[in-house]
């Protein structure tokens, strides 16, 4: 048994908060061999980052290792003093951090930040170090390495910054590489490129890799073995293939069931949501830590389960793992029972919202030169002529990456940002561009939900006061009536009536979002816009919120505009989906049709970039070159032509493409390539595997 590079046994780490010690990680053991990629999956608060930092011996002042051993290539790290750790940090361990923007020194040239490591670790002279640095930039496929080396971090895109950090980490050929959520802040297309790079660099080396993330898809595509972390404890460890095909712990099964697979619409399956939420640090239930949320909890579960060996190099911390293995209990993927929303019989259903060539521009502060030569001030056009119709009672999804203008569109509809051109109609009545010009009746029919639950509620007002306000102002109810209705609203979002007296500070992210939903539905609006409703929440809580939105929409009959970067979640919830890129729509189709060929090249790239949860599925890699162009100089002709893998040439650059109808489906797409050519090319190689059957 060759000694593993990283060996962690019975590790317990605790943080001091206000005098008492709270255990973030309890009795964790695992090891990583050279050349092996071990994934640690867990939601926020599960202690995965603490584990990564503990492995590097870089806990903050108030964190300390209470028990256990950490050995790196046979050497006990806990015995070393910080000064002795310096060479270890330099040569043997390396970290790729989560948010690249703030992990580079803002006032130092990028090239220098890499060269200084080479100079220090290998005693290179300046010239040699700079040459090597440029060489490493080549290896991480950095476009135009010279320019990047001589520019500052704020002048390059997030993707490029992450490449610099990867180069910095690998340039000293460390024995152990730790990646802490390296791509969670990146767009899905950029993430795909970075993941390819990581896989390529690891394959050639004997480096042991510890990959920490909350994204199941990424783990499936990158890691060899996986450990599932819940509330500071490993509940399961297995090879990636075994874990995804046959999870042996209720929490893992619940996770896999609560994440919508690409292509699964609400007609096909009903997402399983794990009830309750993650226990706060320091208040753990007795016995099995997952007991309060577990569907299979029985009497024995009150005793702390050990890590049962459930297979070759496989463990599971569940008393009933054998029953799960035999398939007797616990399968949550349940096909949809009832038709959630009856598709509209009369096709010419009333349109709740109709956008006609909507434009949103932000004027740039003109520089003195421009003022003198009175050139028109440059402007950032975030939304360029979007036309969209949302029928009564239907859910329309709007999918796009950051910088695609989806939030600007939402704010323009709500009147928070004033649209510069185009018209809007709400319930077939013209909608004034600015919020201040709209009367209460219009406001009542148009509500919005925000992304960050922490900022959705005023921390100084109780939940009751927040919910009471729309009832009084928009629906003109009296104080007493409003108070009574608050209880009903709370009940509708599955929260006890006693929450009315609570302050937002005392609630979890999931609960806050539920109250935000209650507030939005309070005035029974015709249209509710949700801007990234679940992206700020943990995976296990997302499913519950998506299902809640589904049920409330069905009950109230209002229509929903769901805005997100997560194509899978939108695919599950929306009836119709529109894909937006650089302020213009690329493709609009019914949910089911969107996942059938022919795809607009951008949609195709999106689909191939999303990491699938099935490790066995193959995906044809289609990668977009360069970065999203800056909104001030928008490309002529087709906006996507600068990065389109199916670039035809002159025609894409010069002429704006027509909208093409796909026969026998509801799909329309915005591209010069005719339908048949597209279908021919795309059908030979499926861009993403078929969804997990059964």
């Amino acid at each position: 048994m060759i000694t593993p590079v990283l060996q962690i046994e019975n590790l317990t780490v605790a943080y001091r908060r206000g005098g008492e010690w709270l255990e973030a990680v309890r009795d964790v053991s695992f090891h990583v061999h050279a050349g092996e990629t071990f994934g640690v999956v867990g939601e926020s608060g599960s202690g995965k980052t603490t584990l990564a930092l503990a492995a590097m011996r870089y806990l903050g002042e108030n964190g300390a290792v209470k028990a256990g051993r950490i050995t790196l290539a046979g050497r006990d790290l806990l015995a070393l003093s910080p000064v002795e750790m310096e060479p270890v940090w330099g040569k043997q361990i390396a970290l790729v951090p989560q948010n690249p923007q703030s992990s580079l020194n803002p006032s130092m040239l990028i090239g220098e930040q890499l060269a200084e490591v080479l100079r220090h670790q290998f005693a290179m002279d300046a010239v040699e170090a700079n040459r090597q640095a440029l060489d490493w930039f080549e290896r991480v496929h950095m476009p135009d390495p010279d320019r990047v080396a001589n520019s500052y971090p704020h002048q390059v895109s997030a993707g490029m910054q992450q490449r610099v950090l990867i180069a910095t980490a690998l340039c000293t050929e460390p024995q152990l590489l730790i990646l802490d959520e390296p791509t969670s802040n990146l767009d899905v297309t950029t993430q795909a490129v970075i993941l390819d790079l990581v896989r390529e660099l690891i394959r050639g080396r004997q480096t042991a890799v510890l990959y920490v993330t909350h994204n199941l898809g990424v783990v499936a595509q990158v890691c060899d073995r996986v450990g599932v972390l819940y509330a500071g404890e490993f509940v399961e460890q297995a090879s990636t293939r075994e874990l995804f095909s046959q999870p042996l712990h209720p929490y893992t099964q619940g996770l896999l069931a609560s994440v919508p697979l690409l292509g699964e619409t609400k007609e096909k399956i009903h997402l399983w949501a794990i009830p309750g939420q993650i226990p706060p640090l320091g208040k753990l239930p007795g016995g099995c830590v997952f007991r309060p949320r577990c569907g299979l909890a029985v009497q024995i579960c009150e005793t702390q389960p050990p890590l049962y060996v459930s297979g070759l190099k496989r463990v599971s911390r569940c008393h009933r793992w054998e029953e799960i293995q035999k398939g007797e209990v616990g399968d949550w993927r349940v096909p949809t029972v009832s038709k959630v929303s009856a598709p509209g019989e009369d096709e010419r259903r009333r349109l709740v919202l109709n956008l006609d060539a909507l434009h949103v521009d932000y004027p740039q502060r003109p520089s003195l030169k421009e003022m003198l030569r009175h050139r028109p001030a440059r402007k950032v056009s975030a939304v360029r002529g979007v036309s969209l119709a949302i029928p009564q009672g239907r859910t329309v999804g709007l999918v796009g990456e950051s910088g695609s203008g989806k939030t600007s569109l939402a704010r323009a509809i709500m009147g928070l940002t004033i649209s510069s051109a185009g018209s809007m109609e709400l319930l077939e009545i013209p909608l004034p561009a600015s919020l201040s010009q709209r009367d209460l009746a219009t406001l009542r029919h148009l509500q919005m939900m925000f992304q960050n639950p922490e900022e959705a509620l005023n921390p100084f007002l109780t939940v009751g006061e927040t919910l009471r306000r729309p009832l009084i102002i928009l629906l003109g109810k009296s104080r007493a009536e409003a108070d009574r209705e608050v209880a009903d609203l709370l009940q509708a979002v599955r929260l006890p009536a006693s929450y009315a007296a609570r302050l937002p500070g005392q609630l979890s992210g999931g609960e806050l979002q539920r109250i935000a939903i209650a507030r939005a539905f309070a005035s029974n609006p015709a249209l509710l816009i949700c801007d990234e409703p679940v992206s700020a929440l943990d995976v296990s809580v997302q499913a519950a919120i998506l299902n809640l939105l589904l049920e409330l929409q069905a009950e109230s009959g209002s229509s929903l505009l769901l805005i997100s970067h997560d194509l899978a979640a939108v695919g599950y919830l929306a009836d119709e989906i529109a894909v937006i890129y650089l302020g213009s729509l690329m493709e609009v189709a019914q949910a089911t049709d969107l996942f059938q060929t022919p795809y607009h090249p951008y949609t195709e790239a999106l689909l191939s970039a999303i990491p699938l949860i099935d490790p066995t599925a193959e995906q044809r890699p289609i990668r977009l070159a360069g970065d999203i162009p800056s909104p001030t100089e928008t490309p002529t002709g087709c906006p996507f032509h600068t990065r389109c893998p199916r670039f035809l040439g002159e025609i894409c650059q010069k002429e704006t493409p027509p909208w093409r109808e796909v026969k026998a489906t509801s799909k329309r797409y915005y591209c010069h390539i005719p339908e048949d050519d597209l279908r021919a090319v795309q059908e030979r190689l499926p861009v993403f595997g078929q969804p997990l059957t059964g």
Partner: protein
Amino acid sequence: MTVTLKVSRAPGAALIWGRRLACFFKRLYAKPLSAIGTTISLIFLLIALAGPLIAPYGENEIVASDARQPPSTQHWFGTDNLGRDVFSRVVLGARQILVLSGLGAFLAVVSGAFLGLLSGYRGGWIDEGLMRFFDSLLALPALLLALVLLGTIGHSTFSVVLVIVIVYTPIVTRVVRSVVLSVKSKGFVEAARLQGESQARLLFREIFPFVLPALAVEAALRFSYAIFLVASLGFLGVGVQPPNPNWGLMVKEARNYVDQLPWALYFPAGAISIVIIGVNLTADGLKRAWQAAD
């Protein structure tokens, strides 16, 4: 110096505010430094309020026979060249300087809060115009502006208060404006706008609670700087009329005979320093308590 705010809110809210203020004070006394500072500030506040009761003599009461005596049981801080009891003048001086600076600082904070809220929330040309004007006022160092103003509108307590307001309102406005700008873009403010909340209620129910902690810290800071300014003006003999027991003026008068009557100089000078240090420590404590509360 506590900013007493008469907020008529539902009982629930009063309870919350009560608890919030209580924990504020608890935190103030948590750290040793701010504990000392708060105690000093409260003691001097007490002296200012109970001034006439404590002071054995009037602020200008002259006992010709007792002139120029060192500190004794009868005159704790000794007497000055005109035979006035230094201890009484320091105590009554406390009232005069604390009330003057307190009033000035309070008015500056109130007007600063209002202007800050207005320009922060409304933005547009009001914000631009106000900020440019305040920039020009801030270009004049505080004491310079005070000297020129006092030199012109004449020496009276009213003019000193006016100077404090003119000198410090721009600074408070800037602080409040930055808080408003950061809160204005938060989700719940926009949600309130989307639900038809009126402008006024939006400003005072949604945004103002966030401004309050920063305002309290700024108020304490302005209060200590105001004392600093009033004392300095007193020393320069501007803005205050003898026999006003302004500590700065007492130091200036005592300076001529510092060799024979050193106590007439050291006690007022000591008083000034201790009060300012006390209020500074309190302001520092407030800032830490507020940051911890976040």
